[in-house]
């Protein structure tokens, strides 16, 4: 036996990466994940078509009123603005809702199906499994954001002209630099979601029902979004995780306004730390009976 043990017990530092890879491929092969991504990819197409039809009817574009989502009036001049518009449209609800589904289901879904007990006796290790689940959710945040951005870019390029980008501060930058800024914005949007991802992960450790965890996370998101709009609550609003979400627009200024961006990222890190610790405390001591 000792020889067999010698073979078996070789330290394998990269094993966690193997587990992470398994988790990511499993997540992204699920129909549910693909459906969420398809919905997210569909939003920019709808927005793009709507803008096209409206400006087609109403004669020369650009007039199109001050209502509607940010940047929408610029889309007809420059398809690249469809990226910014689409992110502004999906960030309040569509994007975080899909994160809520993935994060809420991450552990609760495994508990519900009973596969959690087999992962734990494998033994995946509770802390490691939690980290792998969080890393997978963060990967989904990035992929989901990029799906919106790329779908918007493709739609914008098809329906509208591309060219120099006029920033909010009035200065113009080349299309290439505009693309870089779009990429930076996508990354910032993805980072804006890590607080919610931690909240969802924590909720997921509380229950053995994937549906309940998803519903709770999404419900929390909606509640917090509503609280964020009530003027009487302005004292607590700076501590609500979506409060600075739309600050990504500050990347379209020259020079960039960093203040709100930094506050956003700091707040997300705080949520990740607090709810990540709570999830760890809960998951490492929980009885797994399902």
């Amino acid at each position: 036996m000792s020889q067999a043990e010698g073979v078996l017990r070789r330290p394998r530092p990269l094993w966690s990466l193997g587990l992470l890879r398994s988790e990511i491929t499993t997540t992204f092969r699920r129909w549910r994940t693909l459906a969420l991504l398809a919905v997210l990819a569909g939003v920019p197409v709808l927005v793009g078509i709507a803008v096209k039809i409206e400006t087609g009817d109403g004669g020369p574009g650009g007039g199109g009123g001050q209502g509607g989502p940010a940047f929408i009036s610029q889309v007809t001049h420059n398809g690249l603005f469809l990226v910014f518009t689409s992110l502004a449209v999906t960030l309040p609800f569509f994007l975080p809702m899909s994160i809520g589904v993935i994060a809420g289901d991450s552990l609760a879904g495994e508990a519900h199906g009973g596969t959690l007990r087999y992962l734990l006796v494998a033994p995946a290790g509770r802390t490691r499994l939690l980290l792998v689940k969080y890393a997978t959710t963060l990967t989904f945040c990035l992929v989901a954001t990029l799906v919106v951005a790329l779908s918007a870019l493709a739609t914008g390029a098809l329906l509208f002209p591309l060219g120099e980008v006029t920033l909010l501060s009035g200065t113009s930058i080349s299309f290439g630099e505009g693309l870089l800024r779009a990429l930076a914005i996508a990354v910032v949007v993805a980072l804006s979601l890590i607080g919610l991802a931690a909240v969802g992960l924590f909720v997921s450790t509380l229950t053995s029902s994937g549906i309940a965890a998803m519903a709770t996370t999404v419900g929390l998101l909606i509640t917090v979004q509503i609280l964020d709009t009530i003027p009487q609550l302005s004292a607590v609003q700076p501590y609500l995780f979506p409060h600075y979400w739309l600050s990504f627009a500050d990347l379209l200024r020259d020079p960039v306004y960093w203040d709100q961006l930094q506050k956003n990222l700091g707040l997300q890190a705080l949520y990740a730390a607090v709810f990540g610790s709570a999830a760890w405390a809960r998951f490492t001591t929980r009885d797994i009976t399902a």
Partner: protein
Amino acid sequence: MPPARAGRWPVAQPYDMGEPMPQQPATGPGGMPPAGEWAIETRGLTKAYRGGQLAVDGLDLVVPRGSVFGFLGPNGSGKTTTIRMLMGLIDATAGSARVLGQPMPAAGRRVLPKVGALIEGPALYGYLSGRENLRRFDAADPDADPRTRDARVDRALERVGLGAAASKKARAYSLGMKQRLGLAAALLQPRELLVLDEPTNGLDPQGMREIRALVRELAADGTTVFLSSHLLDEIEQVCTHAAVMARGRLITQGTVADLSATVLGSPGPGRLTVTTPDPADAVRVLKEHGLTGLQTTDDRVTGELPEADDGTGPPELADINAALVHAGVRVRGFGTERATLEDVFVQLTGEGFDVAG
């Protein structure tokens, strides 16, 4: 083969009444790992779920290495709860458990790769194929070598007879197929201990036979098999040892042979059964040969063979048979019956059908 255990293996509550405790050598001098005579050893293991009722109450269980150990008990008697504690899935309320000589759950990272488990039935990812399910569980095992993963997964699938259905989505598996896949997951690596909670649940007769053969084969390789089941003849056919639980308490444990002997209090030669169209004559002849407790039901006559305490030794069965024939009794069937595990089980846990509340 399972090592034959010399002498008496402790029957019923092994730690009480001055019987020497099974010595688990603690960490020896120089930090040597314990040799470990016991695959599983619990002391006062207790679990109260939320709500307060004791699901497992002061369990002192010892499972010898190399044994095939049957873990019996009526529904709700705490078998699965015990297994969950052994595997570190739930925390014990009191007491301690050692698996393969190491404390659980503290040493889970070291112990569990050497343990294959099927707990409360299989659990699968319905949207993955059978093969992908196994690959996923294998990826969660820190000691599993990814380079040999494909070969090991295919071998495990072959072993449980799922080779042909390996690419089918697990959602489309039948109950028995799921059970087989769960077993395959437990067999992905060579294991020192297999913990199987009702492994034949949902299997067809061939499946059950294969599982029995598999358990024997694994035991022959030196794997300890800890098997909970309700199918008593199942256990009787494969197990060397057994323990019986009821209402969270351990009622008895020991070798299967010892259990039948002590629990039923019939260490003697057993009961003789004669099937004959002439029961009245048979009763007369058997009585002459010293059989007691004679009972007749239709054409079956049964009686207790006399003890060999008068110095003459027990009567030779062939002589009794010859005497019956001489007396003109037409004999259709003739043979002794030993107490079955089912008798033991019913004797210990009562006849009642209702689950303890």
